[in-house]
């Protein structure tokens, strides 16, 4: 049983023109086994929240805390956070030319697990997960994310999650760029991972269609850089019917 606590988190994005405050006091606690949907309009700071938790150098936490089982995550380097059990499936996965997917996955698994996985088991493990996500085997020899379509990138993010087995997974708009079939495939891989692992999931999305495939325990509306309302699954239905207007105007005042 693990807990991820986000307490009054304030963060800036660092730009060439100086810092710009984005997160405005985020409070959220996620326990293993729980799935929290974070829904909010574009530009409300959802990705900023996920990057701040993962430790992206472009985002600077100005106050507040992120605790993983009481440990201060903000003091850890990016890779320490990953090894501590945090995983971020990025909205825009990065291309790394010249580094093959297979080399990358094995290096990452070695780092996170603390030892190199036994080759024979590893090959099977990767093959099974790729099969589940309907990723063609040829991708193993391609450079990380290079020339992948949006959907292919998202499948590979979930592949990495399944192989790295995090305690907490933040999925940042994993549904965007997926067509109906791909959404079903990716969602079922996430559900499978959830059912076989004690994982806490933060499911960031703009649309409620994802929540028809991956059932959240809690729904939080995110606007103006913070959580403005929390509730159960019914909140997603309300958002689907009424949109974000109510919340964006509230956040503005």
């Amino acid at each position: 049983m693990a807990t991820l606590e986000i307490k009054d988190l304030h963060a800036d994005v660092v730009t060439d023109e100086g810092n710009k405050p984005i997160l405005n006091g985020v409070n959220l606690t996620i326990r293993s086994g729980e799935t929290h949907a974070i829904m909010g309009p574009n530009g409300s700071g959802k990705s900023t929240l996920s990057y701040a938790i993962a430790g992206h150098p472009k985002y600077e936490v100005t106050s507040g805390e992120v605790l993983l089982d009481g440990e201060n995550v903000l003091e850890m380097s990016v890779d320490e956070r990953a090894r501590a059990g945090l995983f971020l499936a990025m909205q825009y996965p990065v291309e790394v030319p010249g580094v093959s997917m297979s080399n990358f996955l094995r290096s990452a698994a070695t780092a996170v697990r603390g030892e190199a996985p036994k080759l024979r088991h590893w090959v099977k493990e990767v093959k099974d997960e790729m099969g589940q996500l309907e990723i063609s085997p040829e991708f193993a020899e391609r450079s990380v994310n290079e020339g992948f379509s949006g959907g292919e990138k998202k499948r590979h993010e979930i592949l990495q999650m399944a192989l790295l087995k995090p305690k907490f997974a933040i999925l940042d708009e994993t549904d965007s760029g997926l067509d109906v079939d791909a959404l079903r495939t990716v969602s079922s891989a996430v559900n499978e991972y959830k059912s076989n692992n004690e994982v806490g999931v933060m499911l960031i999305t703009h649309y409620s269609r994802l929540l028809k495939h991956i059932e959240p325990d809690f729904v939080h509306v995110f606007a103006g850089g913070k959580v403005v309302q929390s509730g159960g699954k019914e909140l997603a239905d309300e958002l689907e019917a009424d949109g974000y207007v109510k919340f964006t105007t509230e956040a503005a005042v």
Partner: protein
Amino acid sequence: MTVADNTAAANVAEAAEVTIPAASRAERFASYDVEAFEVPGGREENWRFTPMKRLRGLHDGSAPATGEAELELETAPEVRVETVGRDDQRLGQAGVPSDRISAQAYSSFEKATLVTVPAETKASARTLVRLHGPGEGKTAYGHVQLRAEQFGEATVVLDHVGSGTYADNIEFVLGDGAQLTVVSVQDWADDAVHVSEQHLKLGKDSRLKHIVVTLGGDLVRVSPTATFAGPGGDVEMLGLHFADSGQHQEHRLFVDHAVPHCKSNVLYKGALQGDGAHSVWIGDVLIRAAAEATETFELNRNLVLTEGARADSVPNLEIETGEISGAGHASATGRFDDEQLFYLQARGLPEEEARRLVVRGFFHEILMKIEVPEVRERLEAAIEAELEAIGV
């Protein structure tokens, strides 16, 4: 004139528009005679990036030969090696010196080494020509010619090692249908200064893969010029360089398309690290009016690994005919990509390992094109050693 975006801050900025340089490359003066050139002061277009003081007088006639470069050979059984005098009629066939140091070398060498791949022969092994510099504090001039006669095929490695000051011309003369892979490795000791003009002459339907690898030396300036003697020629020019603190590495390419139906493909990649590391890449491509159906592409990428290092990159594409099949160029200089680093670290890889992966990945594209296993392995080891040096 196109000047690539070299600001270190620009993360892989692309400059790909086609523009005409101020002075046409077609008008560049060339001569075998050193006295026909004025002594360059350093402001001239082809010298403006070179630290003239570090040339040790190679450019102004004040550096007489005081030593000799020594050759070590491992030749394929089919390949012929001769040492010839200045009067050998075959010398100078691949091109005329286009700068004063090249002409100085041409005027100063005493003996030339001629390596010949006989006609219609495929060499059964690679040929190695290892050249040892004249030694610290000494100056030497040299001349090497590689000839692949009609339909000859071979792989030749020219390895430059040791100390001293050395200027030379290297000729690659390809007969019709010949296929040559050559690797010029500059793996000099820290004190070395090497200025080399390399003349690539491609016969009808011949194919040349010309690979330049620069790792060591205080100042290395390599100027490959490719010309075509007949249609159907295909030149691939690859370069890989890694500059450390204080090193100046300059690669000046010129591809002169004056003949129809020829192809050129240029790819140079460099990494730089440490204070005062400086790399210069000039890629001049000229497509003359007669060169219909030319296909050309050139690309230079630089990866600046630390503060205080600087890469200058200037692609020039000059087109005198509308009848070309395709032409393009690009140049990019990036600071170490923070996004890539973040992504890899976010998957648990410690920063140092992530950096290594990114740098190896950067060079991977070019390493894969170097089919000579011993050279590729040596390069991989050299890249690892360079990374070790800055503790990444």
